[in-house]
């Protein structure tokens, strides 16, 4: 729910040993897709626990935390949403921040719509909601690994989305109930935990000089705006650093 497709080496042609099954042995390839989907789902479950606990720690109800995981269903945006709400930001700032963090899903849809090939509007709407980091990563990896078997890319997309959806939502509920039972979020260091969660989400994206520079500049701009702007606004102002850097660098 949090890392881009390039962070999932599993299933990439370069990382996998040469596999001779090109259609004659359909079962192993399908089983491998299911195994990968399940392991990705279990991994995101741990993020879901953190999300549920942090959401309740910032003042959302258990039902609101669960609604975010069911309806928004894109982890980075969900963390960003509770971050802005926790800082005292208003509805417009929380909505805008969540939407901007989720912008990459629009780009994923371009790729996955060609792999999933939805044939009706209900199908298309369901595929759109299922378009997240993990389903995109699994389906594009399968498309690269088995270009002659598009059904594996489709299977990877839906099986990963289903696995992540189930485990992410169960984990959110458990985390929210746990957070609710634990009590005072500040004495438990939940505010620091939220900061660490954002850093861990950011970490895999800092692999070259440009994103690193953008990250430092955005942090400085955001803190510079804290004394003069209402809560939530400094984060949105810092987004301009990313826009400017993306527009003028190459």
């Amino acid at each position, binding site marked *: 729910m*949090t890392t881009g497709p390039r962070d999932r080496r599993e299933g990439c042609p370069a990382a996998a040993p040469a596999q001779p099954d090109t259609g004659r042995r359909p079962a192993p390839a399908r089983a491998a897709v299911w195994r990968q989907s399940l392991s990705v789902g279990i991994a995101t479950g741990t*993020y879901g*626990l953190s999300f549920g606990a942090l959401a309740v720690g910032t003042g959302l109800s258990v039902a609101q935390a669960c*609604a*975010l995981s069911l*309806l*928004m269903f*894109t982890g980075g*945006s969900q*963390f960003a*949403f509770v*971050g802005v*709400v926790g*800082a005292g930001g208003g*509805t417009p700032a*929380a909505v805008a*921040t*969540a939407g*901007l*963090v*989720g912008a*990459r*899903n*629009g780009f994923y*849809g*371009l*790729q996955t*719509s060609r792999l999933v090939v939805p044939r009706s509007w209900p199908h298309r709407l369901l595929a*759109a*909601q299922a378009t997240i980091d993990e389903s995109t990563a699994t389906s594009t990896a399968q498309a690269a690994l088995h270009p002659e078997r598009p059904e594996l890319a489709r299977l990877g997309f839906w099986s990963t989305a289903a696995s992540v959806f189930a485990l992410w939502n169960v984990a959110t509920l458990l985390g929210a109930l746990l957070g609710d039972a634990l009590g005072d979020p500040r004495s438990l*260091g939940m*505010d*620091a*935990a*939220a*900061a*660490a969660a*954002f*850093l*861990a*989400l*950011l970490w895999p994206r800092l692999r070259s000089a*440009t994103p690193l520079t*953008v*990250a430092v500049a*955005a*942090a*400085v701009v955001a*803190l510079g705006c*804290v*004394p*003069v702007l209402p*809560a939530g606004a*400094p*984060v949105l102002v*810092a987004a301009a650093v*990313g*826009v400017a850097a*993306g*527009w003028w660098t190459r």
Partner: protein
Amino acid sequence: MNGWTAVLAASAVCFAVKLLGYVAPPRWLERPRVARVSALVTVALLAALVAVQTAAADRAVVVDARVPALAVAVLALLLRAPFVVVVVLAAVVAGLLRALGLAG
């Protein structure tokens, strides 16, 4: 703020963004510049959230128990600790420093 309004509006916006990839003419989103802006906006937003969540209290920049907690999180990330370990370590450090009265 009304929590439910924000939850539902933000969810609707995120769904609309996802749907965009299925209905937009590909040439709109396929420009390299647009993809680059999207990637770097995510980086900028997450970095700003780290900064604000670590050092902002209402309308002031403060140094409290969250700063050493984040330093420990950086160390854990450098040692390739899993997500949940990073998050729990930061909470434990901040919670301990506050319980011992060493930081606000």
